[in-house]
């Protein structure tokens, strides 16, 4: 320690100490001269050796290299700016992607002790859900010692405030929600278990900052005012701060105490029903308890629940915990997506780096003279190599700084566009800066190492490194273009291909009868009345009932195995007219009779998978939970899994006990809004307590297509950037190698070679790198895009059209990039060229 301190103090006093040493030696020389000796050695050299003892030589060299590098870079500003910009693009894409990942999965929420918050979900070997029944939640809350607090969130559909035309998002939470987060309210108070924990307490509501701004014109006196929510009076008690951070990234505009759920939704049994999974559960681990230990205890409690309420728990059910103190609770498949995105962004960096590497190699030839001089005056290869690496790192740092600013700008736009929680800031934190530094070093190695080696060894004219760089560049842009091509195809497929069902002029009406405690008969009577009244409307073609509404929030899925293939079956319970309403063709057999039991209608792919070409009618479905005889085959319609082309559908006839959960679908030739208004007034007259949720299917469909369009637009943009980078790189390489061979060209022209042949001779050296790059890129894309399948909306990941389009674009760009400089070069003046050299 003392030694390090002495070394550092030397560093700060080196000028004085060096002078003192010099004086020591001067004295020594004087004394030696007196004694008659005059052979004192070279004192400069001695001083240098003495200085080395302090171990700071590397710093001197580094400063020298930096100074020299800075001079070199400043002397060719065009080159420097070009390289810095190309690198900045590559780096900023990576930094932005990482920042988003950081915000979602690494940054902890700005709440009290985010590390001890866990998300608890129900799991079984072949089933999983993110929601649990309220009584189960209460049981875990009351009995688990490993949890110091349990938090419940119950999401509900958007709801009406007073007489607003637009509904407002809302969520029920347990009264400890805000106190566990530890954030103070902007105005008023947050929920407290003592004040809001019982159904008898006065109904309170907390407004989000955004809602308070928009609808209540930021008036603090709104606290204490009574507003009607879903026609029920609630008192506003508090307002969340602007930068409020909620669990799971959900930010509804209205926060309601969960004890008021039966008050808002009349006759609701949700809080007492062991079988209605609707609660998202979060918990805080007790001090010193690990998540694993908590899981152990909860597993025992699950077994306890099974004893008391056998139906409420699956076989082998357990509670899975995941860290909850982040914006996004990461699921394994999200890591896969993150990995995929990471690979794509690294590819862009690779393209940018190979590009810069090519430029550096080309510059190496113009610096031959300089290197020759440096070696002649005594620099060794190691020293020159180090100098070149320093230059590369300087270039990379410049690129990284610009890249960080660029990514800040990108994130700012992205955060406002995505309506992200306000506590998220686009300013890079230490993780992002560390990552940027890593990317910067990676880039410097990637683009600087090979050229530096080649130049230091004075092998500037060797072409092999350039050719490998070219191949890598082509391969990387090939992958990027193919992926964006596939996504573009998927978007196009979504937009222009028949999805297998009709969504134009169809609306879904969900009255949530089960939440209002409707009995089977009451539900049937409500639904019958609604259907007959709606059917009487002009323009209405078809009405039917379905349990899981098209493109709704709730999806049921059964994972099973048939003929050794893992498959995903999406079951649904429908009334006989459903296929007509949704315009799904009945291909074989017939539709249900009303309330028919033990029969199933399956989709075409399902039938094909199990029975091949044979007729499935009258057969029994193998390996499925609900066994039944196939009575019909209908067209594929992935209504609840639009993005997954492997989805299979099974339909069952709705039974009378399904009635409280049924959703009405109506197809009409008129405007959906007219049907909506009519349906609302019908429902009101039958039961004014109900607040049906209505969706034109076209809107839902367009929301989904919009998403995929946006994704494919972003990826295409990235792909185009990559290809342009590659194009610039190729132009540079060809132009450069042409300029090297001007004399040879001139001689060959003078001897009578045709320009065509010359052009071919010039470009021949690039054929194999480009071809192998294309081949490697295509193979890589074919391999990697398997992970993309679920996002392709039914386009195969080996879709020939997508590949062909991408490759055509790429080859065209490469051809233009190669031919342009070559042609220009061949317009040379033979006599002058020969004279000149």
């Amino acid at each position, binding site marked *: 320690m003392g*030694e390090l301190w002495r070394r550092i103090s030397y560093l700060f006093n080196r000028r004085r100490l060096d002078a*003192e040493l010099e004086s020591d*030696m001067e*004295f020594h020389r004087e004394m*030696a001269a007196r004694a008659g000796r005059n052979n004192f*050695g070279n004192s400069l050299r001695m001083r240098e050796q*003495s*200085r*080395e003892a302090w171990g700071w030589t590397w710093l001197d060299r580094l400063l020298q290299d930096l100074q020299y590098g800075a001079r070199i870079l400043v002397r060719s500003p065009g080159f420097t700016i070009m390289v810095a910009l190309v690198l900045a693009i590559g780096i900023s894409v990576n930094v932005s992607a990482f920042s988003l990942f950081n915000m979602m999965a690494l940054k902890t929420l700005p709440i009290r002790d985010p590390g001890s918050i866990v998300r608890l979900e129900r799991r079984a070997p072949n089933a999983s859900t993110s929601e649990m029944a309220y009584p189960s939640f209460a049981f875990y809350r009351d009995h688990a010692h490993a949890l110091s607090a349990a938090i419940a969130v119950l999401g509900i559909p958007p709801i009406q405030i007073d007489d607003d035309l637009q509904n407002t998002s809302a969520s029920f939470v347990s009264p400890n929600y805000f106190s566990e987060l530890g954030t103070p309210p902007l105005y008023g108070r947050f929920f407290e278990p003592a004040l809001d924990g019982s159904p008898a307490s006065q109904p309170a509501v907390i407004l989000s900052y955004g809602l308070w701004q928009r609808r209540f014109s930021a008036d603090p006196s709104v606290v204490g005012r009574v507003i009607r929510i879903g026609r029920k009076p609630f008192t506003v008690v508090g307002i969340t701060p602007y930068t409020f951070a909620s669990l799971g990234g959900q930010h509804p505009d209205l926060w309601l105490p969960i004890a008021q759920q039966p008050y808002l939704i009349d006759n609701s049994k949700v809080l007492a029903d062991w079988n209605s999974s609707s609660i998202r559960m979060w918990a805080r681990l007790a001090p010193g308890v690990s998540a694993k230990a908590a899981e152990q205890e909860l597993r025992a409690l699950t077994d306890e629940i099974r004893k008391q309420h056998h139906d409420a728990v699956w076989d082998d059910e357990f509670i899975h915990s995941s860290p909850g103190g982040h914006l996004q609770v990461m699921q394994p498949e999200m890591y896969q997506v993150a990995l995929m995105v990471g690979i794509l962004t690294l590819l862009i960096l690779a393209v940018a780096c190979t590009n810069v590497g090519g430029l550096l190699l080309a510059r190496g030839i113009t610096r031959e003279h300089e290197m020759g001089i440096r070696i002649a005056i005594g620099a060794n290869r190691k020293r020159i190599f180090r100098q070149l690496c320093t230059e590369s790192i300087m270039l990379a740092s410049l690129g990284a700084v610009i890249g960080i600013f660029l990514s800040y700008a990108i994130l700012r736009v992205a955060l406002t566009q995505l309506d992200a929680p306000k506590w998220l800031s686009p300013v890079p934190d230490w993780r992002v800066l560390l990552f940027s530094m890593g990317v910067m070093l990676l880039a410097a190695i990637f683009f600087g190492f090979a050229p530096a080696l080649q130049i230091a060894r004075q092998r500037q004219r060797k072409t092999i490194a350039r050719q490998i760089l070219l191949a890598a560049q082509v391969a990387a842009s090939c992958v990027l273009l193919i992926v964006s091509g596939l996504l573009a195809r998927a978007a196009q497929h979504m937009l222009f291909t028949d999805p297998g069902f009709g969504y134009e002029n169809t609306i879904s009406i969900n009255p949530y009868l089960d939440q209002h405690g409707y009995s089977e008969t009451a539900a049937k009577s409500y639904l019958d009345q609604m259907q007959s009244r709606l059917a009487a409307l002009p323009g209405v073609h078809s009405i039917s009932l379905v349990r899981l509404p098209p493109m709704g929030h709730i999806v049921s899925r059964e994972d099973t195995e048939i003929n050794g293939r893992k498959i995903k079956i999406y079951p649904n319970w429908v009334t006989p007219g459903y296929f007509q309403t949704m315009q799904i063709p009945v291909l074989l057999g017939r539709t249900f009779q009303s309330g028919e039991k033990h029969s199933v209608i399956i989709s075409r792919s399902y039938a094909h998978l199990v029975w091949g070409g044979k007729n499935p009618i009258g057969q029994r479905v193998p390996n499925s939970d609900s066994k039944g005889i196939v009575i019909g085959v209908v067209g594929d319609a992935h209504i609840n899994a639009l993005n997954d082309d492997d989805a299979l559908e099974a339909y069952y006839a709705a039974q009378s006990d399904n009635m409280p959960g049924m959703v009405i679908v109506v197809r009409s030739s008129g405007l959906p809004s007219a049907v909506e208004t009519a349906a609302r007034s019908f429902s009101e007259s039958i039961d004014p307590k109900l607040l049906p949720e209505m969706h034109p299917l076209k809107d839902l469909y367009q929301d989904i297509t919009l998403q995929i369009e946006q994704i494919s637009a972003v990826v295409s943009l990235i792909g185009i950037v990559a290809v342009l980078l590659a194009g610039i790189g190729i132009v540079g390489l060809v132009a450069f190698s042409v300029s090297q061979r001007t004399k040879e060209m001139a001689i060959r022209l003078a001897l009578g070679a045709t320009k065509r042949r010359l052009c071919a001779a010039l470009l021949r050296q690039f054929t194999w790198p480009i071809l192998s790059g294309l081949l490697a890129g295509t193979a890589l894309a074919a391999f990697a895009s398997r992970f993309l399948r679920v996002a392709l909306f039914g386009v195969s990941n080996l879709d020939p059209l997508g590949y062909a389009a991408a490759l055509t674009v790429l080859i065209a760009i490469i051809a233009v990039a190669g031919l342009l400089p070559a042609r220009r070069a061949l317009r040379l003046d033979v006599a002058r060229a020969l004279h000149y050299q």
Partner: protein
Amino acid sequence: MFNRPKEGMPPGALPMLILRVLQSGSLHGYAIAQRIHVLSSEVLAVEEGLLYPTLQKMLVKGWVTADWGISETNRKVRFYRLTPQGRAQLKAELAGYNRITQAIQDILRTA
């Protein structure tokens, strides 16, 4: 071919000798060289090219410190002084040296 050490100075012995001559009091660089030369009956000569880098290394290690003083010729010059660490180091080096010479002596006597 056998490489004869310059002026018979065994490699690595210089720091030990410097520590030893500084034990009796602080000296400037020239005096250190002189003292070693004289005490060795003019067998060992310390080259300046070795002396000053070695002194610097000893400064880094903290075995000696340098203070300003006035030389016999009335010139301002730095005097090197042993630190407690330097004394400990000298002790260790002497012990090591004695062990090695003893071992070498044993071989020479018996072999």
